[in-house]
């Protein structure tokens, strides 16, 4: 069975670890923040709170036999480089490291990453694709603390204008677009609808039943707004 180690349990690392575990992979998840480790402990094979920049800690966890290492320690590039280097030296077969820029990516490759991923860039591409497709999506993470949420308008929003909803004040989020199916009659008299996208809706824009709101903001606010009924 392939062994995966995920180091850095921000939203991205957490998501990678949980999804690998769902695919029945043997996952060891590591972060220096015990709370993050606790949050994920029930999902993965092993979760450990320790400083992954200390080689001894990684060796103690028996990571030298790991097949794949995912390094996603966020914006701390020096830690990212150090951990990538250590995993390489320990003989981890494949190392995938997260970078925020191409310069970072090149450095990570030089110290041993087999593959560099750019979640922000990839998410941007995904967003563009999603905005041009009728499918629904949930949350796109732009940074550790900000994201874009696509949300079916909660019942309590229906019939209200954006200025009445006070989303910026209450949740620190902004509606950047609304997807709406506009009803129409076909030539034969039967009903149909056409999907439309309203970009940057104004304060007097009224939310209708079935509207899909595309909301940009802080992750905390997005999490809150997801729970609105």
């Amino acid at each position, binding site marked *: 069975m392939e062994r995966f180690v995920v180091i850095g349990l921000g939203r991205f690392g957490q998501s990678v670890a949980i999804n690998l575990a769902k695919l029945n992979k043997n996952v060891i998840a590591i972060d220096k923040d015990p709370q993050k480790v606790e949050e994920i402990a029930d999902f993965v094979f092993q979760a450990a709170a320790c400083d992954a920049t200390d080689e001894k800690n990684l060796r103690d966890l028996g990571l030298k036999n790991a097949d794949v290492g995912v390094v996603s320690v966020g914006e701390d590039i020096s830690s990212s480089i150090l951990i990538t280097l250590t995993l390489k030296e320990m003989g981890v077969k494949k190392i995938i490291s997260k970078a925020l820029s191409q310069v970072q990516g090149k450095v990570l490759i030089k110290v041993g990453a087999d593959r560099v991923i750019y979640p922000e860039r990839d998410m941007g591409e995904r967003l563009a694709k999603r905005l041009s497709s*009728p*499918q*629904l999506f949930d949350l796109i993470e732009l940074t550790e603390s900000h994201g874009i949420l696509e949300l*079916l308008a909660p019942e309590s929003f229906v019939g209200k204008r954006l200025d009445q909803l006070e989303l910026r004040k209450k949740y620190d989020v902004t509606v950047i677009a609304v997807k709406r*199916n*506009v*009803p*129409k*009659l076909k030539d034969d008299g*039967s*009903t*149909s*609808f056409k999907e439309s996208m309203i970009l940057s809706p104004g304060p007097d824009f009224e939310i*209708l*039943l*079935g509207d*899909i709101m595309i909301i940009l903001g802080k992750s905390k606010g997005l999490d809150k707004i997801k729970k609105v009924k």
Partner: protein
Amino acid sequence: MDDIKELIEEGKFYFLNQKYNEALQYLNKALEKDPANIEVLYTIGIIYESINNPDKALEYFKKVIKIDPQHEDAIIHIHSISENQ
């Protein structure tokens, strides 16, 4: 039957004006009078699909093809909803 036609027209009118709940009320009244009316079932399916309630939409489109297995539009909508789920 005129009564049903009127209810359907009202339903379509409200749908076109994006008053979905009112549209569904009229169409459900029509359905009480004629539970196998394909036009009503199909229109309800369209309304649910347009308000992003694919499960309910599927329920009604499937009722349509149960009565008329050749109903092309209903088949297209079932296919498209299933693809997106």
